[in-house]
């Protein structure tokens, strides 16, 4: 295995918009190259988390090596690196792309190019990858391959006339794709004798092997016993094992040399030491400089996570610890809320990342969680010159100590069919978007460009976008920077008591609207008590909106069940059970879902 001819290696990935069939094509490639029979394949081998399969998205990069015997009689090694497919994971995507030499662009024959397609293609081109297109789902009645081919040439500007026309689902045209991989993806370069330089494009934690680092060897060779150093984090370890990726398994081998894709284990205990994008080098014979493109990933979205049952706090801590082993982009630190007790302030790449972590905690670790409204990092410039990075609204200093505040802004691209341009522009306007321009990609589709405050898109922007375009709009964004903004803290008072877990930072102009909607929503969520409960929204102590939960007038079962006590008791038990899912704030019991329901406030459908 050690004498692999570089010219027979193809390192590539598939880029696509969500749902355009990326994972299905990956499955077909694996199947056709004989790594697995179709019987052994569970649908979509590469998406191996339950959650990924359910949502049809790839969360963690997956990689697989197969061998393909081409029509020219030669055997080729294919390293297929499956990239995560969501804007939250852009940086991971860019590093996975950097591990490849080429990319297959897969486009849905019926839907054509989408915002994410563009974003991913640009990422691939930025990484100097050779991209060749494949038109998928040609068997759909609404397929229009000609139109899509023209669109690819016009919009992206890559040759598409001889793009394979395929149906990954039905196995049509897969041979063409395999031949195109051989013909169009360049073989890797690099000197096996040079000092080691390997790009980390993913890592995962295994309880037996420790951290397993996924690498692309750019230069040099690594084998068992090599003392390696992560150039960014500085961690130094001796290599225990190197190998390559079977389908769902790790296959050890002698060495990995320039051009190859594989894994390294070195009894590393923490994925934090092996951040994506870092360069692995030989500690004793280091390369001159690290590979380009490394950056430290920062959390963009923060929220509080609390166990529904306070006694489960240690369980939540353990679960977060375990998840973090596999997910270096998850941050958390303990915090306390008056309303919710002990919990954690957690940082995520984006809202999808947040939702994924939340679902994994609930499913895999069987935890019932209460999540506070997600927020972004605000920069608070204090009058004394100090700058605070604020992730928890409760920690906002007194207004008298604040000189000004800044909020993160993203550049967003929204692709939409022309009939919905109006409603999408209206949405962006409501979310304080700054219109930058619009390009028509073809007669019926346009690309809208906006600068948007991040805090306006993390709540329910994606849902609103989908519902206002009947699912047709797609969206992509990049962090642009910070801008000064008129921000205020909106507090919610329930029965005159401030509920810290419901506070959030909002632009002064939308404070009234948000406050009003919050109060309305909470009025529906909070059950009636024996007394009247005022729900108020306040900014700086001044009430700006109010609703009232009326007092309950009776709660009695004036019905005789005779001797059937069991039935009566079941009713009371149900009532008591309902109370268990409540949080006590002062003398008001608030259902846990009330804390979450206020996140989705867009009422225009």
């Amino acid at each position, binding site marked *: 295995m050690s004498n692999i001819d570089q010219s027979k290696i193809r390192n590539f990935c598939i880029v696509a918009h969500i749902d355009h069939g990326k994972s299905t094509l990956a499955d077909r490639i694996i199947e056709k190259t004989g790594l697995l029979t179709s019987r052994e394949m569970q649908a979509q081998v590469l998406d191996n988390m339950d959650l990924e399969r359910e949502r049809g998205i790839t969360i963690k990069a997956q990689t697989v090596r197969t061998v393909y015997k081409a029509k020219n009689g030669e055997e080729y090694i294919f390293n297929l690196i499956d990239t995560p497919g969501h804007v939250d994971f852009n940086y991971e995507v860019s590093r996975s792309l950097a591990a490849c030499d080429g990319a297959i662009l897969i486009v849905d024959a019926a839907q054509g190019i989408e915002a994410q397609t563009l974003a991913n293609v640009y990422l691939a081109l930025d990484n100097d990858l050779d991209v060749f297109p494949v038109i998928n789902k040609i068997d759909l009645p609404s397929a229009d391959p000609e139109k899509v081919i023209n669109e690819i040439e016009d919009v992206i500007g890559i040759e598409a006339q001889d793009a394979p026309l395929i149906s990954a689902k039905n196995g049509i045209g897969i041979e063409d794709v395999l031949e195109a991989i051989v013909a169009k993806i360049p073989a890797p370069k690099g000197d096996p004798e040079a000092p080691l330089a390997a790009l980390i494009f993913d890592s995962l934690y295994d309880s037996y092997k420790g951290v397993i680092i996924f690498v692309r060897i750019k230069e040099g060779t690594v084998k068992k016993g090599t003392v390696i150093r992560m150039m960014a984090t500085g961690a130094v370890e001796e290599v225990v094992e190197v190998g390559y990726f079977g389908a769902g398994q790790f296959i050890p081998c002698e060495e990995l040399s320039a051009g190859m894709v594989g894994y390294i284990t070195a009894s590393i205990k923490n994925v934090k030491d092996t951040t994506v994008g870092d360069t692995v080098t030989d500690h004793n014979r280091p390369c001159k400089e690290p590979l380009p493109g490394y950056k430290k990933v920062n959390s963009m979205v923060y929220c509080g996570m609390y166990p529904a049952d306070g006694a489960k706090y240690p369980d939540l801590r353990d679960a977060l610890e375990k998840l973090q082993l596999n997910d270096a982009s998850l941050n958390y630190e303990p915090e306390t809320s008056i309303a919710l007790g002990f919990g954690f302030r957690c940082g995520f790449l984006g809202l999808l990342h947040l939702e994924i972590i939340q679902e994994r905690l609930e499913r895999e670790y069987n935890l019932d969680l209460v999540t506070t409204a997600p927020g972004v990092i605000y920069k608070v410039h204090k009058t004394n010159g100090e700058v605070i990075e604020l992730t928890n609204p409760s920690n906002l200093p007194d207004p008298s100590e604040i000189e000004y505040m800044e909020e993160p802004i993203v550049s967003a691209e929204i692709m939409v069919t022309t009939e919905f341009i109006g409603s999408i522009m209206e949405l962006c306007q409501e979310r304080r978007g700054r219109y930058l321009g619009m390009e028509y990609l073809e007669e019926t589709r346009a690309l809208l460009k906006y600068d948007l405050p991040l805090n306006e898109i993390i709540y329910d922007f994606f849902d609103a976008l989908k519902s206002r375009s009947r699912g047709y709009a797609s969206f992509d964004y990049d962090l642009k920077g910070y801008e000064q903004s008129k921000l205020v803290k909106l507090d919610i008072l329930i029965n005159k008591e401030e509920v810290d877990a419901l506070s959030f930072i909002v632009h002064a102009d939308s404070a009234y609207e948000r406050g009003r909607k919050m109060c309305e929503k909470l009025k529906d969520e909070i059950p009636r008590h024996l007394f009247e409960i005022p729900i108020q929204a306040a900014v700086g102590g001044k009430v700006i909106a109010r609703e009232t939960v*009326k007092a309950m*007038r009776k709660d009695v079962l004036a019905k005789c069940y005779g001797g059937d006590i069991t039935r009566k008791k079941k009713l009371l038990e149900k009532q008591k059970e309902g109370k268990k899912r409540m949080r006590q704030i002062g003398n008001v019991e608030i259902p846990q879902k009330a804390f979450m329901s206020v996140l989705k406030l867009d009422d225009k459908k």
Partner: protein
Amino acid sequence: MNSISIYIHIPFCIKKCKYCDFLSAPYGKTVQEEYLRALKQEIIEEAEKYKDYTVKTVYIGGGTPSVADPDGLCGIIKKLFACYRVEKDAEISMEVNPGTVNPDSLQKYRKAGINRLSIGLQSTHNRELELLGRIHTYEDFLEAYENARKAGFENINVDLMGALPGQSLTDYEESLKRIISLKPEHISTYSLIVEENTEFYKIYGEEKEKIERTGEGFGILPSEETEREMAALAEEMLTKEGYRHYEISNYAKEGKACKHNIVYWKRRNYIGFGLGAASLFENTRFTNTKNLTEYLKNPVGKREVEKLSVKDCMEEFMFLGLRMYEGVKDSDFIDCFGKSMYTCYKDVIDKNKEEGLLTGSETLRLTDKGFCFANYVMAQFLL
């Protein structure tokens, strides 16, 4: 000698009422005969177990027991007297509905030993009766009531329902007035509960849920506020006429409280016979099968038995006992469980006293306000 009470279930009716979710249905003559035979068999074969107990109260409920053939039913009562030691002054109640009784049948019941009748009137307005799916009119009731008095019944209960769809406070007041003028010994005032699996649920289910959430519906079912006014009105009018509000939904003239129901609230022993009937005996609960075919095949066989834990018993002691106006006595609690109720429930009791829902200490009872929120209070007594 220890005593027990006996409940006998007759699951027949002429036609299912639209709000009814009890175990009852219209049955043909043959099934009715088979049922009475099975019931008789059960009563006879079970007698041995209770030979050391006297029977203090008997209650024949349904369904509509008066739908059953009077001679057949009286035959069962006769068997009961023959096989059990029924106390001389035992309270023997039977539910009847207007439109299913006549002077002849009522005399038969009285002669067989029934000494208390519970008449299902529900409303004195014919349009409300029709809406409920009742088979009788107010006039049918008046006739039945008069015939019952003539047959010698000196202890009669009348059932009245509030919170009906479209019912106003005045409508309810009128029904109350009319019933009071007849001077029955006992009046039960229930609120309509829109239960799942009923005709009414299909029509009013959504509104009911809205009322539960917000206190107000769509204007067809009375709001929570109106319902509370109805309850307050009943309390005021009936108390003025010398009825005592002795349980959440029951009023009686002095000495006429239903002894059988009190057995339930005080968790004394009671044995249920018939389809789906529940029993409580020495802190064990058993329930007959609810499947008619199964019951007919083997009326003494299939019983679901549940041995109640001390926790179950304590909970029941509290939430059943508190239904009664007189409340629960700590001395009784100590007799049952060997410790004071304050050892288990101090926090709950203090909290509810503070909220003005409970009062007293040795004797603990719901306040007037507490009666309005009985479920809220009772749910807290589940451990």
